[in-house]
């Protein structure tokens, strides 16, 4: 069933916004303003925005390391998500976590863990808590094609399937784990078949078609809310940039990158659909884009003007009930 025009317009706004978000992060990462390294999600907006759009605030969300976009859309104050990546005191975690560790419990964004495969088992616990307390909140966990190699993924699927835990495993198959193509790391041609051994319903969808993303995610959520257990969805997509901002990604064929950018850009595809099927005008979409651009400019300004954290705060919150000794 096709999504309504209003919903598609909202998704267009979200996707455009997170693309712009990442473009700015890339600029400031490359010029050294943002410390450390960042994994950009440009090219994966349909999956990120589509999945998050299906969720309630009380659903548990475990983004992955390439998750700025999804994180920004969870309902958090977006500028504080960006400020965290900028290592500022105004960041959602006060600058202690950075790009890979943007958590916001208020909106049940449980954050990523720098150890791949780790959240794939932590998410069992949030799903268990929902089941235990009899709520119908679901848990969504994002993972990459490479991460599927971790043993935790097997343990998680096995337990979730056996106990019928309300988890939606969202595998964003962008086809590479750093330099390694997924077909060199796994025997399956489609990674959704991987879940069959655990008798977990699974499917592969076009992760760059936001309608397909939403439809598959909603089917899975409905099952989970009804207590029918986990679903495993493979979203086929592509990251335009290298593994991290600055990675030249010499391991990918140029024509492959070109094909995905020119012909499978999720934002362009949605725009075409909005115009041809929904009768939107260019101006209408440009207005949305202008608004997003304005919002992004404000966020960047906020980040650049925000103070650095206080150094001594590095000692805070190591223990729940006591301070750590300073020198």
């Amino acid at each position, binding site marked *: 069933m096709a999504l309504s025009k209003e919903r598609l317009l909202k998704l267009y706004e979200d996707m455009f916004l997170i693309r712009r978000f990442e473009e700015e992060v890339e600029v400031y990462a490359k010029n050294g303003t943002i410390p450390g390294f960042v994994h950009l999600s440009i090219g994966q907006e349909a999956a990120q925005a589509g999945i998050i759009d299906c969720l309630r605030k009380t659903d548990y969300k475990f983004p992955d390391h390439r998750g700025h976009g999804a994180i920004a859309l969870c309902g958090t104050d977006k500028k504080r998500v960006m400020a965290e990546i900028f290592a500022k005191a105004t960041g959602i975690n006060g600058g202690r976590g950075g790009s890979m560790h943007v958590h916001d419990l208020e909106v049940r964004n449980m954050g990523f863990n720098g150890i791949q495969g780790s959240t794939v088992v932590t998410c069992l616990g949030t799903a268990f808590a929902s089941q235990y307390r009899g709520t119908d909140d679901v848990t969504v966990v994002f993972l990459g094609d490479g991460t599927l190699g971790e*043993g935790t993924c097997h343990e998680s699927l096995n337990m979730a399937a056996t106990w019928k835990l309300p988890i939606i495993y969202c595998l964003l198959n962008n086809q590479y784990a750093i330099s390694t193509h997924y077909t060199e*790391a796994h025997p399956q041609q489609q990674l959704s078949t991987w879940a069959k051994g655990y008798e977990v319903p699974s499917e592969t969808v076009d992760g760059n078609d936001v309608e397909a993303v939403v439809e598959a995610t909603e089917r899975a959520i409905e099952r989970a809310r009804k207590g029918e257990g986990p679903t495993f969805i493979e979203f086929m997509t592509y990251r335009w940039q290298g593994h991290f901002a600055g990675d030249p990604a010499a391991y990918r064929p140029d024509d492959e990158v070109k094909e995905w950018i020119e012909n499978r850009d999720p934002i362009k595809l949605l725009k075409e659909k909005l115009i041809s099927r929904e009768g939107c005008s260019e101006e209408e979409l440009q207005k949305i884009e202008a608004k997003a651009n304005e919002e992004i400019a404000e966020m960047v300004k906020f980040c650049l003007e925000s103070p650095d954290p206080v150094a001594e705060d590095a000692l805070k919150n190591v223990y729940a009930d006591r301070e750590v000794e300073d020198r």
Partner: protein
Amino acid sequence: MSRIISYGKAINEALHQEMERDDSVFILGEDVAKMGGDFGITQGIWHRWPHRAKDTALSEQAIIGLANGAAICGLRPVPEIMFADFITCCYDQLVNNAAKLNFMYNGKAHCPITVRTVQGAGIRCAYHHSQNVEAWLMNVPGLVIVMPTTPYEAKGLLISSIRNNNPVVFLEHKLLYNTKGEVPEEPYTIDLYKAEIEREGKDITIVATQTALKLAHEAAAIMEKEGVSVEIIDPRTIMPLDKETIINSVAKTGRLIIAHEGPKFGGFGAEISAIISEHVWEYLRAPIMRVTSLDVPVAFAPVMEDYVLPKTEHVVKACREVMEY
């Protein structure tokens, strides 16, 4: 012939030369083959020996498990774990298999694996990509823990590790990859079980590892101006440890400072301190001091990360305190 190369290049060269010398040596790990490693350390190996360089899935447990099994069959695997923080994902294979294999088979089989991994803070990557892990492994008899600091050590110690019949965890430090120094072109070994006295002195002994060695040298230069002579020891291999060199030094100077980048509690420094108390406490003229990180996870923001790490001024302060005691 010697020339100046980087620590990273020295490791790469050692790998090439051992692959060349012994066809039972092979490498495996995430992105180590075609791309040549996340930090570029295994570059060129796959091009020369495509069947002896394997890219794996993200599967640390399988990487070390495979290495252990292959080692029993007489191969010499050199697996890479991309960041030392991820050894938690293969901890069982390291602790309950590799470390005990020689013992379990009663010496009839060995475990000649060399697990290369990179540790340490300083690149603004927060608490899951910045840890120093030697203390996680020090309580596991059967492991050899090597911590090279200079390019010369990196090459010689890696060659020795690969030829050694024990499971070696070879802890590289990411901030050292680009540091340069003299390295002979030809293959050479360094005694794995011998500490190095890097600087001779008579008033204070500083035992330091990796990035803390630089702090120790800077502090020694400052103390020299104050008329204090500092001896600096690089243990190179921290387990099994060359206790004798450290004990002899402290018996001479009567003062000991241990400096390392990892947290203080339960760290390498605690062990050295205990060894000295057991053996030569009567020679001590001042309490033993430790200069380390604070006992907290490493935060992301540069001001916070810098705050928790040990600095030269902390070593200088410790030197003055032991002299004034």
